[in-house]
């Protein structure tokens, strides 16, 4: 975090830094997170136990991963509404590969990732070749995939022993190595948390610290300016969608491995959570742009909030309302309260 503040475009806020209000706004989300942790810890001591904190991270990991997918697409200047559906597709693809086709762990994972990359490419074609606005194109893809994933299993969840549409029975099963992706620990830390943390660090380094990240941000910010500066903008925008699809597909794999079945409704709610994480991330350190660190913080923030409310026995059906409220509040913080610079 301290390294990000050295970022050139951040330090221009220096004069305002000195004011307490500016400082408060800059770290608002971190302060709120600390307040939440203290509050939940006080109300329910079990909340702050290591096992519970790890379980928060575990449940947050997929949202964070899909949040990264949204963020990468956003940085390249495109919204990707299809990531939830891509995760669901990947969940069904990997399950189908193992249970019906009898493939091993590695081929199943590769097949799922390939499906995700293919969807990213497809989105790129819709947006950059057919010139469909990004929101509409990826919304269309979302509906398309939502229907497509139901076809192979005739709308049923994929479990060992599933009766296929042609009457035969699927006799494959989930590979143990595959299930380990969602269930194993590394020094006590759930493997999905380790995977997502590593990917987030990599994505952060690439977007913030390399010239490729700068080109991607520039492409998303002003494509003409980026092209006139010699950037292969079309290639970058395609890559952003493909990476987005790949990350979302990995999210689907992790869900399949954790749950151990190809649940037809396994992808529901993923889009809301991940978009919320990415947009809340705009408020982190007053970035006001899609950024990896912000997305991770946003996902953790939502995870902590929901876990804490659950522990306090707040009904589960209020969760969406809470998420929506947090999202709007964060956006208000980003845009509404910080108009100072524009004039």
């Amino acid at each position, binding site marked *: 975090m301290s390294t990000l503040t050295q970022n050139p475009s951040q330090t221009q806020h220096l004069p305002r830094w000195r004011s307490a209000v500016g400082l408060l706004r800059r770290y608002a989300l971190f302060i709120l997170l600390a307040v939440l942790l203290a509050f939940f810890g006080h109300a329910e001591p079990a909340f702050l136990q290591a096992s519970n904190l790890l379980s928060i991270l575990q449940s947050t990991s997929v949202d964070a991963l899909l949040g990264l997918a949204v963020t990468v697409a956003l940085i390249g200047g495109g919204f990707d509404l299809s990531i939830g559906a891509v995760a669901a597709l990947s969940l069904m693809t990997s399950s189908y590969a193992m249970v019906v086709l009898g493939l091993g762990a590695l081929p199943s994972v590769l097949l799922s990732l390939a499906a995700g990359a293919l969807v990213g490419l497809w989105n790129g074609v819709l947006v950059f070749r057919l010139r469909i606005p990004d929101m509409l194109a990826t919304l269309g893809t979302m509906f398309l995939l939502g229907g497509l994933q139901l076809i192979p299993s005739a709308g049923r969840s994929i479990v060992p022993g599933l009766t296929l549409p042609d009457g035969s029975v699927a006799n494959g099963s989930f590979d143990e190595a595959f299930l380990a992706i969602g269930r194993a620990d590394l020094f006590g830390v759930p493997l999905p948390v380790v995977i997502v943390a590593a990917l987030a660090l990599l994505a952060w380094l690439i977007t913030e610290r390399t010239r490729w990240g700068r080109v991607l941000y520039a492409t998303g910010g002003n494509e003409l300016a980026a092209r*006139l500066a010699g950037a292969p903008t079309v290639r970058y925008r395609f890559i952003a969608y493909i990476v987005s699809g790949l990350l979302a597909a990995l999210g689907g794999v992790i869900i399949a491995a954790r749950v151990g079945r190809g649940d037809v409704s396994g992808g529901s709610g993923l889009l809301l959570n991940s978009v919320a994480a990415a947009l809340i991330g705009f408020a982190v350190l007053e970035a006001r742009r899609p950024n990896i660190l912000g997305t991770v913080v946003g996902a953790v923030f939502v995870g902590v909030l929901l876990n804490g409310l659950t522990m306090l026995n707040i009904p589960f059906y209020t969760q969406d309302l809470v998420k929506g409220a947090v999202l709007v509040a964060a956006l208000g913080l980003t845009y509404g309260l910080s108009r100072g610079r524009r004039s």
Partner: protein
Amino acid sequence: MSSPTPLPDATARDAVLQVRHIGKRFGATQALDQVSLTVRPGEAVALMGANGAGKSTLVKILAGVQTAGSGELLLGGLPFAPRSPREALAAGIVSVHQATEQLGVPALTVAENLLLGRLCNGHLPVLLRRGRLLREAAEVAAYIGLNLPLDAPFDDLTPAQRQLVALARALSEAARVVILDEPTASLSSREATRLFEVIDQLKARGVAVLYISHRLGDLRRIADRAVVLRNGRVAGEFAAPLDLSAAVQAMIGHEPSLPVRRETIRTAQPVLAVQDLVLRPGARPISLSLHPGEVVAITGNLGAGKSRLLQTLFGEQTWRSGTAQLDGQAWRPRSPADSIARGVFLAGEDRWRSSFLPVETLGACIGDLISFPHLGRLFPHGWLRPAHTDRIAATAIGRLGIRTQGPDDTPDLLSGGNQQKVVLARWQSQPYRLLLLDEPFQGVDVGARHDLIDAIRDRQDAATLIATSDVEEALEVADRIFVMHQHSLIEVDNHQGGAAVLATLQALETTEAAA
């Protein structure tokens, strides 16, 4: 505020607008300091000043976009403190912005745009009959003798026509003061002449005009008086007949000087040689040679093909036919990336569209903007070293005299002239063979323009090709001048200077008008 002010003198009493001791501070910068000026009905007052002198701030206060920090405004003798553009407009202060896209609603027709004010404030019935709409629009158009198809979409109008529509609308809304901010920036000389006629009509109707421009020719033509701002203060007032050189001197604080035009050094091998380049089907082929150390300017009307030529040489537009050599080797760029790799750089027109990034984006600060096209060369392994880009930016800031707090500033914090210096610095920060500059003096004041010209003419090893619609700018910067007309080039005899260029332009326009 309550301090006793002396009774206004006779000239002030008949003033339509009085600005009294206005001050405005942004953080550590005192943008306006005790600025006072008076505008009388039917008078055109030129507001002059270098970038950052406080012109835009004053205009924004008058137009209700910002509020004054201290001092007061009187409109028709009554205190006036607009808190929004709407209030300013209702009081009769109309500002026509330099950005042409803000002049109207593109989706509506000319007639609807002319009646925009009435459509919005409910003075027209909800259900409009086409006949009534057109009749009322025709009345508005008649105020300035506007002769446009009222049914045409606003989208199809030229920038000049849009400005005229905005002006007609201003008149129909009982304007008392019209503020024109760089109105001729994107107009050809013929279109500008038309605009000046309209301004004369405004004056004849008793409307006061506050005119902001960097173009001395404009000011000479229309201004009755000039008020010069420097560093947020009034540096001088000049009454008609305007002594423009004194005004310019007050503005920049020293005598302007034309660069010494060098006799071009024609070495054996030109940097760029172009043969029979056709920009558009039917256009006469273009042949052109540019030599090391040479600065060549192309002038001509909007739409003559200046940008097209530059973009074709840069690989942003498709190369139709014709051949070219760069340093003796065949040259036919396929993409901007291709050109940049070979040392052919282009700084596009309209810096916010072609060069800068939205200020929130990573890489939007001037240090990053300067290095952005060269990142591949500077950091071949991909890993950025901010200290290195900051060093490059610091060098550029020093060399061009960019007024900024440092490489971390975003360009929106800079004045127009300093923004343009950033654009030039970007392309001059690395070695190049040919630099293509499209309208490099847009919204740049005289002082900054001289800094830019010095920096452009400083390069002895490479060639520079500049497109500008302003003949004065072309004369100031270039060793040789071409006039572009209908996508072809006409070389102007350099020894006859400005008169020859103007004569060529005028001859072309009259033949065009006759056709």
